């Protein structure tokens, strides 16, 4: 679990983060959602320690990170895996060397163990056979997969992804999202994803934090996000036509469901009415009733 408390950050006069707090739960994909320039990436970099916040603190599983001793911060950093927006693969290394790199630097594994782990991680992200390729020889989606493999290779506890599906086609983007979700659940890690992609929110967002002008404006689940009455969030979500149409369809479906429900209730009421009458007639001596069952029911109710 990662906790952030009252994070502030400004670059010169420009305030980028203004008192952001939150709790990112383990085993869940936590999404930092917001438009471009709202401070999502800066917040992510503050959390992993690439940028020092002006004020506020970050805690990893109860261990204070910001401004703590260097060796403690190093210890925590060695549990962090990060997928960068541009993948940030080392150009001079092959795919397998990229994945092996953190194992070589951070663990005491033998060469054989490292090779096994690299093969496992590449298989896990669906890249078996790409070991000897250079980053310049593979596609954007494959680069993201290699980035994920490199992040999980040293058994990371915390996974950070900065816009993992930017620049990818919708199908590949979905596969990357699903892969991150699977890995998060499979290894029970704390995952934080920076995104402005509503598809990611709908597909994998267990918990969503919406940032607006450096402030956390809303947090909740993906089921709750469509029903908020926060204007900025609604403006963001329904900025594109697809989402507006989806909302319209959803509202129509709800309306239909409501009407269906009402009709069902009415039908039930109708169906239950004679039986009540029957109960009444059985409970009390039945007088002659020339007006029929409805009048009998009404009379029975009045009595109750």
């Amino acid at each position: 679990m990662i906790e952030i408390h009252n994070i502030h950050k400004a670059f010169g006069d420009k305030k980028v983060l203004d008192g952001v707090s939150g709790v990112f739960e383990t085993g869940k994909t936590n999404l930092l959602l917001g438009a471009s320039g709202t401070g999502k990436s800066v917040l992510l970099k503050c959390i992993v320690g690439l940028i020092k916040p002006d004020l506020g603190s970050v805690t990893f599983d109860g261990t204070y990170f910001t401004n703590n001793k260097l060796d403690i911060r190093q210890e925590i950093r060695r549990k962090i895996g990060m997928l960068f927006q541009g993948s940030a693969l080392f150009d001079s290394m092959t795919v397998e060397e990229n994945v092996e790199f953190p194992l070589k630097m951070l663990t005491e594994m033998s060469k054989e163990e490292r090779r096994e782990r690299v093969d496992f991680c590449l298989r896990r992200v669906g890249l078996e056979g790409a070991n000897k390729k250079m980053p310049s020889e593979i596609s954007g989606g494959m680069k993201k997969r290699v980035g994920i493999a490199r992040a999980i290779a040293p058994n990371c506890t915390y996974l950070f992804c900065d816009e993992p599906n930017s620049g990818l086609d919708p199908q590949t983007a979905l596969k990357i999202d699903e892969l991150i979700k699977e890995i998060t659940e499979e290894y029970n890690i704390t995952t934080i994803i920076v995104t402005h992609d509503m598809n990611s929110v709908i597909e994998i967002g267990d918990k969503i934090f919406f940032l607006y002008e450096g402030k956390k404006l809303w947090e909740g689940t993906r089921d709750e996000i469509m029903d908020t009455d926060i204007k900025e969030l609604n403006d963001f979500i329904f900025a594109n036509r697809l989402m507006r149409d989806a909302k319209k369809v959803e509202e129509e479906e709800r309306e239909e469901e409501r009407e269906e429900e009402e009709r069902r209730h009415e039908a039930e009421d109708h169906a239950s009415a004679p039986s009540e009458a029957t109960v009444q007639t059985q409970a009390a001596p039945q007088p002659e009733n020339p007006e029929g069952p409805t009048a009998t029911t009404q009379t029975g109710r009045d009595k109750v």
Partner: protein
Amino acid sequence: MLQSFGKYLLFMQSLFTRKESAKILFGRTVDEAILIGINSIIIVAIVSTFIGAVTCVQVAYNLDNAFIPRSTIGFMVREMTILELAPTITSIVLAGKVGSSIAGGLGTMQITEQVDALEVMGINSASYLVLPKVVAAILVFPMLVILAMFLSILGGYLAGTLSGELTPQEYITGIRDQFIPYNITFALIKSVVFAFLISSISSFTGYHTSGGALEVGAASTAAVTNSVIAILIGDFVLAYILL
């Protein structure tokens, strides 16, 4: 200016904090030495051979006097080569080749977040990336300067003898005349200082690049310009102190 210099000093200090293991740094230094050294041999060989040849021809042109022995041409080629041309010109050439390569490489790593990737893993990126470059340059530059000295004198020999300006015997006599071994030491000290200046200034410039491809190009240009200025200032200071 003063702020940049202070930043440079802090950057140099950061190379020696949180160092990786000696084994890793040794491996990286060998890789960098190959990149800086082996890949520069051809350009150093071409430049120094022709500089030696041109020096010989120009000295011969200026010493067209019956009272001055022809062996003086060989003597002057040797002195100019060892004291100035081999260490300084070679370093200026290397500032262009190695300096721009270091700044461009680090700048690209910086803007593509590869440096951030190292930092997130808990690796001191400055130490991991820059220290091996500086050490490798300090080890390799003197070797390249020795090569440049040899080839310059050889170039002078070929130019002088093939053009008929002087005989091989006259040239070799001049080369051997009044030789001062300290001049070699002085040239090697210069090469070590220049190696440090080029590698550290270029690394500093490249490491602090931000923006995009345009900024990487600008960083490469700035690295070469600043390195050359530093070499020339260093050249004067060393000559003043050590000669």
